[in-house]
């Protein structure tokens, strides 16, 4: 009986770790809120999609950054840009399988022309793209490129 309980205990413990984060939907107003934020938290916001090769390749760098800087008021947000009809079939399984720890949100806007400039007027719309926002320092950095960890950390340290 004790053994069975132990097995049950570890089983529930195991599954609780497997429960992935809930992915919330955002609209373009959220972009404006992040950009106008006055909080002490520095936002590292990455625009990506599951089908985008360079995006998927750089995800571990963002995951590592979130882990390393979690206690320094840094929040990594991964804004997913897959097609809405593939949200259940692609995005959720992807986030689960990779066990992504950074916060993932879904860009629930059908017309990118209405929000790309809100992220940055420099952005052409090509994925991946990243903005780093420091409300406290009133600084925003924009990058239309993919990152290796060291480079991403360097970019963060410019505003931290």
């Amino acid at each position, binding site marked *: 009986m004790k053994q069975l309980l132990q097995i049950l205990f570890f089983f529930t413990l195991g599954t609780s770790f497997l429960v992935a984060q809930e992915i919330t939907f955002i609209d373009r107003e959220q972009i404006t809120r992040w950009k106008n934020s006055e909080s002490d938290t520095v936002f590292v916001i990455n625009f990506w999609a599951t089908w*985008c090769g360079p995006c998927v390749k750089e995800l571990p760098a963002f995951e590592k950054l979130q882990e390393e800087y979690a206690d320094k008021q840094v929040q990594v947000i991964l804004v997913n840009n897959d097609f809405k009809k593939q949200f259940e079939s692609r995005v959720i399984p992807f986030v689960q399988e990779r066990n992504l720890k950074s916060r993932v949100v879904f860009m629930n806007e059908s017309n990118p022309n209405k929000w790309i400039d809100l992220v940055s007027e420099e952005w*052409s*719309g*090509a994925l991946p793209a990243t903005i780093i926002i420091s409300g406290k320092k009133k600084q925003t950095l924009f990058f239309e490129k993919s990152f290796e960890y060291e480079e991403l950390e360097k970019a963060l340290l410019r505003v931290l």
Partner: protein
Amino acid sequence: MKKPLSLLSLALGLFAMSFITGVHDGYHVGDVARDFKLMNVDKSMKSMADAKDAKGYIIIFTCNHCPFAKAYEDRIIQLHEKYAPQGYPVIAINPNDKDKAPDDSFEKMQERAESKKFPFWYLYDDKQEIAKAYGATRTPHVYLLDEKRVVRYIGAIDDNSEDADMVEEKYLENAIDALHEGKDVEVSFTKAIGCTIKWKS
């Protein structure tokens, strides 16, 4: 002796800078776009000058592999079928490096053009010179040119890449219609999410 040297290096530096920014900048609405000579999927070399009686050109940087490009394939075919008879042919150009995106090799382009029965030229910008000159960054990325190759519209095909039935604004069609009617293009620049062009390293 020192001065001319530093002036020279300054000039060289400025030259290098203008080159670098030029690469990223590309054309704006109102600029005259260059012609090209690129290989079509039928292995013939094509230039805009070869498009007989054209009143304009719908240049679309696109490719095989990108989900956004795929989502627009049928719409691009319809565009050509609607506007080529009016004098505005679609010219599709794949700018992707085949080593970075194997699905965008010339052979794969031929296969795709065959299976989808592309009615338009599907050209391979294998040196990526044209995409760079135009300033294309993503697929699909549209440049609408008039008869004299003046850029009249840059951007997205319409406002909904995921679902053709949900489109509210047909940016490109509006621009072509305006051009055709001799009017100013009202919305001459738009943005869309797309796949980065896979540049050679």
